[in-house]
């Protein structure tokens, strides 16, 4: 198994429902707050953005970096988390 965090595993294990944006892997307190300020207050809103970007890794990473200043690792974690969630539930 690749090295996924506990957060990742918890997130992809079930439908996200109303989980806050902090629940996403790679998104901690600081990034979560920045996202909320921009209007992405729930995980599903970020999911919406992910889908609008056609689940493209590069676009999503760029968007995440621009929106909340995520670094490469955080971008990767978040992207991986959402992609896997989509593979299971979408």
């Amino acid at each position, binding site marked *: 198994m690749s090295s996924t965090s506990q957060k990742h595993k918890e997130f992809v294990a079930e439908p996200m429902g109303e989980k806050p944006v902090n629940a996403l892997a790679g998104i901690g307190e600081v990034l979560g707050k920045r996202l909320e300020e921009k209007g992405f207050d729930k995980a599903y809103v970020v999911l919406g*953005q992910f889908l*609008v*970007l*056609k689940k*493209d890794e*590069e*676009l999503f990473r*760029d*968007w995440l970096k*621009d929106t909340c200043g995520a670094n490469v690792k955080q971008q990767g974690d978040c992207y991986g988390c959402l992609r896997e969630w989509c593979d299971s539930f979408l």
Partner: protein
Amino acid sequence: MAALSNKSDQEIKDLLDEYGIKHGPVVDTTRPLYEKKLKEAMAKAKVTVTKPSPDRTFYREDQEEVTYVTCQTPVRSEGPSGDGKPYMRSRPEYSERDRVDDKPYSRPEYSERNRVDDKPYSRSKLEYRERDRVDDKPYSRSKPEYRERDRVDDKLYSRSRPEYSSGRQYIDEPHVYNTPSSSSSYSKPTPVMKSGGVVKKENTTSSGRLIPLWIQFLVFLIVAGFLYFIFTNMESAESSPFNKIQ
């Protein structure tokens, strides 16, 4: 160029397609991202246009090469882009990837493979320019540097090599070897290329041999002599083992 923010979503979408940028629908949340991407692509395009003249020649030749693209797609598809799309499409992608110059179709192949392609004129100019060469003689400059690592190669279009050989150190052009004056100081003389082999290695001082040849021969002779000694001193089997006991 009009400000990107004044353009409509459709215009943004058209611009993205023009630059070959992969994108999704242009909505409120994605628009700033796409505008940023377009700005970068435009800046890159402007930079490449204002480069010195040899690059201009590149563009001109580029257009000439359009006709070759279709013929060459099998070759092109070997590059990292993985597809045989025309170079126009891949240019922004590679520019975003921070390639040094603007030759998407040729560069990935060469940088990764050291393969020779049959486009002498286009690559040579640009690569020589980047190496800060003034004239476009292929063998006059870069070869001495790479001579020591040279691998014999029988390609005619070595012009493109110098650029890549810096990273690779073993690509070479044949006419490099044809300049004996400059190569005299090096171990590999000019005919090496012609013969295609490394026969000339012998006359150099043990190039690449850890143990001298005579020692190897000596050891071989010793072992052979030893085996011969053993065989000759072995007792021969009795011709008839079933002798009657008298």
